[in-house]
């Protein structure tokens, strides 16, 4: 039931009235023509109704706090409660984004420290925290690549190369930055097709965007040759940090030859995903792109032997691509990531890749032993791996989506389905380092059960899920008969 359907004209959460509202005739100085005529159709409900309504809605969600959630490419690891709690300290919540620096030293110190840690663990020379999600980090990165070529008056570079397995944000970003996209095929081992890459690079190449490990869940072994191929052609290399969890502490993107990258802190640095966001997508850059970093950035000076932090802006970084958000980005998310980074510290940072890789390889082996088909047999899993259910689809009529829906009935969130697009009927499974082997075993057992069910009663599996709050939804109706909001007229 929608909140509007619980509404009663005249009901209100009286406790929320502001102090000064003794009369409401004080807007007489606003011309009649600029005033609202009819009040907005919103719910009229009591405070308890609101709390109950949304608490009950929350219970209709899977989440990391309630379930194993092995969504590939999304890094659904434990989100420390302490991180949330410390970001919600009143001093941080109350700070206005334009507050004077003299009354912002606590916050700025956290941001400065975070910049330094991120620089170190990625092997980059500079970090700007401002992008608000991975996709905006990509935008910042590609815009810097453009600024770099423009500054050299190299205007012929009109293309960004992107492996066909790439995430959709990569090509969409390249276009938002005014580039044409040229796709590079991926071979049957999940590696970029080097010959095709060599053919594609040239004077029109502005750069290559890729992630390593790739979205195929395998490490790109020829990364150094890819890097030199692109560099020799005069292009720059962009690292999509969505898969940073696989290498955090093991390999620095800077050492692989990448010139610029983003990090998805809502993945690798354990900040909560919030049912769709917010995230944070800081960018790291190598030497060549330092002059173009997006603002603001936090700088540190020593004044009378004391550390003083201040914002760096256009005056300090005259060639910057500028600000990409009204203020400084998703500060609260950055505070949570900072908390996480400090708890892990030097040693803990190395453990991230190790244990996420251990978990993924263990699960992959168990899946293989149970008879599931690996997309890249013979390769190591990274922090994630792919199985393909195409033989189940062909022989039993149960496809990757059916399997996924049935898994929900077993209390597990489904892995990423049908991505990357080049593996048919695929599941991209990412357990993360924060899951115990018991949880991984339970998941594999559920898969084995579903396989059995599919062999015995395919129709049943195709009808799943059964014990969620709704059965399978009619997406086609949703798109053909658009119903995007409640309106009072529907009531009558």
């Amino acid at each position, binding site marked *: 039931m929608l909140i509007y359907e619980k509404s009663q004209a005249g009901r209100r959460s009286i406790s929320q009235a502001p102090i000064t509202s003794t009369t409401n005739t004080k807007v007489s100085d606003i011309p009649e023509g600029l005033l609202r005529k009819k009040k907005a159709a919103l719910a009229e409900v009591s405070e308890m109704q609101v709390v109950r309504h949304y608490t009950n809605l929350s219970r209709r969600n899977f989440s990391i706090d309630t379930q194993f959630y092995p969504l590939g490419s999304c890094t659904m690891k434990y989100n420390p409660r302490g991180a949330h709690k410390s970001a919600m300290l009143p001093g941080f919540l109350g700070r206005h984004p334009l507050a004077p620096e003299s009354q912002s030293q606590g916050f700025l110190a956290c941001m400065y420290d975070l910049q330094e840690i991120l620089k170190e663990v990625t092997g980059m020379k500079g970090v700007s925290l401002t992008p608000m999600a991975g996709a905006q980090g990509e935008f910042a990165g590609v815009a810097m690549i453009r600024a770099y070529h423009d500054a050299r008056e190299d205007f012929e570079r009109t293309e960004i190369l992107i492996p066909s397995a790439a995430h959709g944000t990569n090509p969409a970003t390249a276009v938002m930055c005014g580039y044409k996209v040229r796709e590079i095929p991926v071979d049957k081992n999940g590696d970029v097709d080097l010959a095709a890459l060599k053919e594609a690079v040239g004077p029109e190449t502005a750069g290559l965007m890729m992630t390593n490990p790739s979205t195929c869940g395998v490490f790109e072994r020829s990364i150094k040759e890819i890097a030199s191929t692109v560099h020799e052609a005069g292009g720059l290399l962009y690292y999509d940090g969505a898969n940073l969890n696989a290498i955090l502490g093991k390999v620095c993107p800077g050492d692989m030859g990448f010139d610029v990258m983003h990090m998805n802190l809502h993945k690798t640095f354990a900040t909560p995903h919030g049912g769709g966001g917010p995230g944070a997508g800081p960018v790291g850059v190598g030497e060549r792109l330092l002059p173009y970093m997006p603002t603001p950035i936090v700088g540190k000076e020593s004044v009378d032997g004391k550390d003083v932090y201040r914002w760096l802006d256009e005056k300090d970084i005259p060639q910057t691509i500028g600000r990409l958000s009204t203020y400084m980005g998703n500060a609260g998310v950055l505070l949570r990531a900072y908390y996480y980074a400090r708890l892990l510290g030097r040693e803990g940072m190395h453990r991230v890749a190790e244990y996420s890789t251990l978990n993924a390889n263990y699960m992959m082996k168990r899946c293989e032993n149970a008879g599931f088909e690996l997309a890249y047999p013979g390769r190591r899993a990274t922090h994630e791996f792919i199985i393909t259910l195409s033989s189940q689809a062909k022989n039993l009529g149960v496809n990757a989506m059916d399997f996924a829906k049935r898994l929900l009935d077993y209390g597990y969130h489904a892995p990423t389905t*049908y991505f990357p697009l080049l593996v048919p009927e695929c599941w991209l499974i990412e357990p993360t380092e924060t899951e115990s082997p018991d949880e991984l075993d339970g998941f594999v057992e559920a898969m084995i059960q579903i396989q059995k069910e599919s062999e015995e009663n395919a129709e049943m599996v195709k009808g799943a899920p059964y014990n969620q709050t709704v059965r399978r939804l009619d*997406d*086609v109706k*949703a*798109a*053909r008969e658009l119903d995007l909001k409640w309106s009072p007229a529907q009531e009558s």
Partner: protein
Amino acid sequence: MSEIRPELKYLVSHEWLRVESDGTAFVGISDHAQEAMGDLVFVETPEVGSTVTAGEEAGVVESVKAASDIYAPVSGEVVAINEELEETPEAVNNDPYGDGWMFQIKLSDPAELESLELLSAEDYVAKVEEEDQ
């Protein structure tokens, strides 16, 4: 196996073309294409009066999980569009060669038909079979 009409011409990108005696041609997508897309939820046609160029994008078909460009098989002016599709995109699924037609072009250069790489029904069958493998 999907239906392929012998009297039509096809593109490798799965559009069909039916040339009329009055110098116009109708365009739609093949039965094979609609099957591969699944239930269509939206069809974007070019505007009447606009000109389209052979091989260039002229519209889009969307299903829930995919979107695919429609390329103009020939060049010319768009003289009519199938307005019904705005409300009932499913017509393309139900009757791709009939009620599911998308737009009608007045050919700017009928000679183009000879020079363009349009597939005969036979060639298109071969192409579809090749794809299925």
